[in-house]
């Protein structure tokens, strides 16, 4: 029976449909303003004449330490990325810690060291912070909240998107999600898969500086490539075609996803940016990406089709078939039977 939802489900935080409706129905109406309504990765705010981009994020990843990173690195990179893909040169971050009583200080130090290193690598400073401690059991080890500001260097918007635009991704999909899953309690499997957690600002700034015709960018985090492309299709009002044979995937990641029955399009990333670029600029943008260490496997994975009232994302499959790519539910469970 279709029941009215009375309680929050895990899927409400999954970056998929459920979260979308929670935001649209419960959150947006209460803070109605045009800027928030755009639901951009970072909000454009004018501060004393300067064009600033501003964002916030929270990090609740479990496990705290995973192949390729930890919550500290994630917190900095995730925030930097929200600014970078919105068209900013990230400048400064805040870091607020909510720590569970009993948390090992040695682990806290590791996390802080990671955050510091990530900030240095990304060329940002952590200029403000806060520390709270809650009773045992009230936080899963540690939660981190951040805010970030940056200087706007490009005017990116879904409104700029046109038919024929190319859709570029800077590398292999699904690495982060599968790395996390491989270490989730109860599902553990030993794996060479590393999270792709990384700060993308150097890459995005390089592309924005070298190439005109970048329409829009978004980083593909929870909900994966599928979520971002659906957001773009609906936001821009255009159908999108994705080409399976053009999707960069690491074979260990593919094998692991196959074992667990996951569709990699729905799986989280932490170092991937999807760029919508004018067709004539696509090759140049791709070139810039491939010359950068975070873009070696960059590829044009699809393109924007005609405007459509009920825009959808369609995948041209490797065997010559077609199927729709839906907005993910938000909590992809491993299938067994």
């Amino acid at each position, binding site marked *: *029976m*279709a*029941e009215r939802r009375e*309680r929050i*489900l*895990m899927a409400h935080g999954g970056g998929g*449909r*459920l979260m979308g*409706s929670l935001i649209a129905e419960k959150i947006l109406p209460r803070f109605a303003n045009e800027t928030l309504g755009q639901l951009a990765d970072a909000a454009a705010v004018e501060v004393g004449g300067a064009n600033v981009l501003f964002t916030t994020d929270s990090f609740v990843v479990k496990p705290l330490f995973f192949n390729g990173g930890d919550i500290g690195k994630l917190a900095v990179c995730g925030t930097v990325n929200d600014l970078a893909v919105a068209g900013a040169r990230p400048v400064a971050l805040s870091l607020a810690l909510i720590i569970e009583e009993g948390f090992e200080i040695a682990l806290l130090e590791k996390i802080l060291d990671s955050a510091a290193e990530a900030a240095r690598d990304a060329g940002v400073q952590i200029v403000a912070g806060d520390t709270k401690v809650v009773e045992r059991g009230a936080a899963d080890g540690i939660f981190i909240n951040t805010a970030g500001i940056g200087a706007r260097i490009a005017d990116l918007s879904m409104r700029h998107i046109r038919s024929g635009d190319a859709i570029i991704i800077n590398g292999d999909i699904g690495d982060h999600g599968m790395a996390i899953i491989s270490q989730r309690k*109860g*599902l553990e499997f030993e794996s060479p898969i590393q999270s792709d957690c990384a700060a993308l600002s150097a890459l995005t700034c390089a592309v924005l500086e070298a190439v005109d015709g970048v329409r829009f960018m978004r980083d593909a985090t929870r909900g994966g490539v599928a979520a971002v492309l659906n957001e773009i299709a609906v936001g821009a009002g255009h159908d999108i075609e994705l080409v399976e044979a053009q999707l960069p995937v690491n074979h260990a990641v593919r094998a692991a996803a196959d074992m667990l*029955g996951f*569709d990699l399009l729905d799986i989280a990333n932490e170092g991937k940016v999807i760029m919508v670029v004018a067709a004539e600029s696509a090759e140049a943008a791709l070139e810039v990406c491939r010359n950068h260490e975070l873009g070696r496997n960059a590829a044009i994975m699809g393109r924007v089709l005609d405007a459509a*009232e*009920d825009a*959808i994302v*369609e*995948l*041209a*499959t*490797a*065997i*010559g*078939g*077609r*199927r*729709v790519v*839906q907005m993910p*539910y938000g909590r992809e*469970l*491993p*299938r*067994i*039977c």
Partner: protein
Amino acid sequence: MLNRIMKAQRLMDTACLRLGRPINVMEVCGTHTVSIFRNGIRPTLPEGLKLLSGPGCPVCVTDQGFIDIVLDLARREDCIIATYGDMVRVPGKAGSLETTHGADVRVVLSTDDALRLAELHPDKTVVFVAVGFETTTPATAVAVGEAVRRDLKNFCVLSGHKLVIPAMRALLSDKNNRIDAFLCPGHVSVIIGSDAYLPIVEEFGRPCVVAGFEPMQVIEGIAEICRQLAEGMAEVVSIYEGVVRPEGNRTAQKLMETYFEPYDGYWRGLGRIPGGTLRLRDEYGRFDAMRRFGIEEIPAEEPLGCRCGEVLCGLAAPMDCGMFESRCTPDTPVGPCMVSSEGACAAWYKYGRRRRRHG
């Protein structure tokens, strides 16, 4: 790869032309359903060749009464529900495992995990929700064996395990069926062996082709079916080479026989299927959740308007159901065909037609 696809397509086209009538191929495996949709196989098939999704999704064929039993047990403070991921969102009369506030539900990848839970929580009873066909049943059989050896007092199994051959027989015995051939499940066949389909071929004269799950396997499996139909043949053929054997996995078969016995249980949408469901044998009754908690299996009424049953038999397409995409969506599922990741309705909703609202 492209060459093989074209070759298979040519074979299918030729066969369809020769036959001169529409062909209905039914697959009875949830993983085939997903593979067909994820790889967008339908658009590559000739006009007139229809792929029907049959009752191959073990969650979809689980009667709602069974799900309500799971939810009742989940609400008990002394129970931990151990389940494969597929069952978590299936709706019963009042919610699902996911939405049952306070229920202690653990998603497990193997029965080992369920046994471990029982050892870690001696004060609770671990109820393992055993859903699945012959690929999954042997794992449960092993678990029951372990529970016997370790004399576990707080572990039990709620068995909804089902058998594929009785289902195929029931489908073909229905006068209204339009099934011309079966694409047979790859991994069930690993266990039961491809010879298990011989009685179906002999009794009903329908080709049975066993294929794996890679898209090439599915396409070539369908091509083989078309070839047989065009030549007026009906045979068991396995193209899942190097994996499926005629005799199957004897060890697994013996284990299933040791701990389980078939009975005429309820399948959603298909009613009672003779010998179609497995329950624990009497000597292992203490590990049967139904007996332990004194529960009786009562088939539940389908929610009004729900056509999961017909969809499961290939007699209706998801789009034919009045609730498809309106009242019944993946976020607000009415029946299991919509919520199970292998359900036909969920697959159509997720991967299927474009522009549903505009027809």
